[in-house]
């Protein structure tokens, strides 16, 4: 059967012959598809370039000396290749200390947040209890409220921290938790960290799509609620948990708002980067002994280098875990 078909195609001869037989239809179709793919290629190439260009630009700038920055002939390939910028940025941000801090904090915060959000998401997806809709509305509210709205009073809340007056009774006055790491861990344990409402929503959505038979079978076989959760449901949900964890990690890594508010005294990459231009000024003043204004180009060069140094670990992470990032958003089946 196949053989005869092949023969038929062969006997139909060349492309042009077949085209004539189809009355020009084949040529038209072929031409359209080529035109579409050329247009698509140009469009996508342009957009990809648009997205990647700032990174490429930063890479080339970060290797330039100051005189290259002002040289109009030098555009992207530095004339005097240097790694001085990296050394300076590393010193200004206290790179080795702050990358360790950032890594530890991001990792622990992300783990804590995802653990808590998984519990909550599972609770919302799989159990019926009174006031469930009310509490879920609260989750939505948490997603909707910009953290900046309540930032003011959170600020004060932690400055004069107290739970129902307990600490006042013991110490005589509320404790000041500002400037320590503890408040943020407490908030993460209570699912109130960065974008935690979103994680709860995504995890709940995922658990809702798992067929209930699986759970019932486990119950029938004598699994308790906890055992079912840990042995049956958690392994099933691993992809979405991985991706939520990666998001939590990455967003915590680059976060400026919560870090500035709660972790002000801890050296972190995010806060270090946002201060890098000021620290550059202070550094130069210290070195030269006179107050000078730094040129815009040079401070931007240092800024670009610093940004690269923050971003590179994330890019490496993304290269390895790209699939986990992207695919589980699709698998969560977000709906309204």
């Amino acid at each position, binding site marked *: 059967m196949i053989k005869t078909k092949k023969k038929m195609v062969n006997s139909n001869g060349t492309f042009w012959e077949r085209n004539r037989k189809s009355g020009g239809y084949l040529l038209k179709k072929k031409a359209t598809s080529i035109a579409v793919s050329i247009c698509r290629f140009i*469009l*996508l190439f342009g*957009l990809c370039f*648009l*997205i*990647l260009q700032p*990174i490429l630009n930063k890479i080339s*700038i970060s290797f330039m000396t100051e005189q290259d920055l002002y040289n109009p002939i030098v555009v992207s390939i530095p004339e005097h290749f240097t790694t001085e910028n990296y050394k300076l940025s590393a010193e200004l941000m206290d790179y080795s200390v702050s990358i360790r801090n950032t890594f530890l904090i991001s990792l622990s915060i992300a783990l804590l947040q995802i653990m808590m959000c998984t*519990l909550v998401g*599972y609770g919302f997806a*799989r*159990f*019926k*209890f009174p006031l469930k809709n009310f509490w879920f509305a*609260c989750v939505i509210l948490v*997603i*909707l*409220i*910009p*953290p*900046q*709205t*309540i*930032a*003011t*009073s*959170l*600020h*004060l*809340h932690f400055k*004069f921290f107290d*739970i129902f007056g307990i600490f006042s009774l013991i110490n005589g006055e509320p404790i000041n938790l500002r400037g320590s790491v503890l408040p943020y861990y407490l*908030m993460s344990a*209570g*699912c*109130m960290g960065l974008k935690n409402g979103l994680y709860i929503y995504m995890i709940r959505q995922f658990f809702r799509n798992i067929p209930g038979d699986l759970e019932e079978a486990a119950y029938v076989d004598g699994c308790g*609620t906890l055992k079912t959760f840990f042995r049956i449901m958690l392994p099933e949900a691993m992809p979405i948990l991985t991706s939520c964890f990666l998001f939590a990690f*990455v*967003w915590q890594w*680059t*976060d*400026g*708002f919560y870090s500035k508010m709660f972790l002000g005294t801890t050296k972190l990459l995010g*806060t270090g*980067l946002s201060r890098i231009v000021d620290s550059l000024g202070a550094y130069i003043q210290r070195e030269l002994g006179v107050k000078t204004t730094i040129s*815009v180009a040079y401070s*931007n060069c240092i*800024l*670009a280098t610093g940004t690269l140094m923050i*971003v590179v670990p*994330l*890019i490496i992470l*993304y290269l390895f875990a*790209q699939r986990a990032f*992207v695919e589980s*958003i*699709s698998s969560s089946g*977000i*709906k*309204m």
Partner: protein
Amino acid sequence: MKMKMPKNKLAGLQKRKAISGYLFIAPFIIGFLVFMVKPFFQSLWMSFCTVTLGSGEFTSTPIGLDNYKNAFTVDPEYSRLLVEEMGRMMAYTIAIIVFSFFMALILNQKFRGRALVRAVFFLPVILSSGVILGLESNNQLMAQLAQTIEDTTSNISITGALEDVLRTSGVGVRAFDTLFEIIDHIYDVALASGIQIIIFLSGLQTISSSMYEAADIEGCTKWESLWKITFPMISSLFLVNWIYTVIDFSMRSDNEVIKKIQKVMIDNLDYGFASAMSWIYFLLILVFIGITSLFISKRVYYYD
């Protein structure tokens, strides 16, 4: 008696399940009560007060609606920033939704290097978040470079020429201006639409191909099946993406209103005024989301 037994048992089981359900969501409830409810109402209360910081204590004296009045009438920037920011949000959200819809349509086709392109489009979700976004927006070196390029090429680009033609024609100049602004900032739009593209893509992949085949046999062109099949089938995702984009946009760190609020709070220590401003902003966004999502959800088509 015999009838009652199983019913009781069922009630017991349901009760047990309800209790374990509450245990599961307990972290959220505790967190919500401790870290959200109190600051939430406190910030609402503070917005009606002047707050003075003393040593070890802060006092708030109620002054009625003065903070709100000041925000609109006395403060020179706030109302202007608010209007600008809302307008920008509207324009950008529409642009982001349209852009990500068409990008998802393109990325859903089969071509070589698709995985690579998808990876590149998703990259901004990771890279332009948090502090980096705020730093990116005031990068003077890049701005200078762009200015130089613009000066040397002096409007010989196609878009520049087109812009001139449309501007001089004089019809709906304001609308064109907004459009041009968005086109000039296509980079920002592309950066902000990573997640939305993925959500649309996941929706596109759930549409069964038999629908398109049936439409094809009935003589439907590709263009018609886009609007008659694809669009209704993923219309619910428009709502999701719309809400996500608005929230995302309103919380960006390069948002002028937020910057203003932070400045008043941290530099001037005027907690009452800062709370009032953030409450106005929050309520406006809530109303905006409410109205627009009501408008969109009327048009959403549910297949099942």
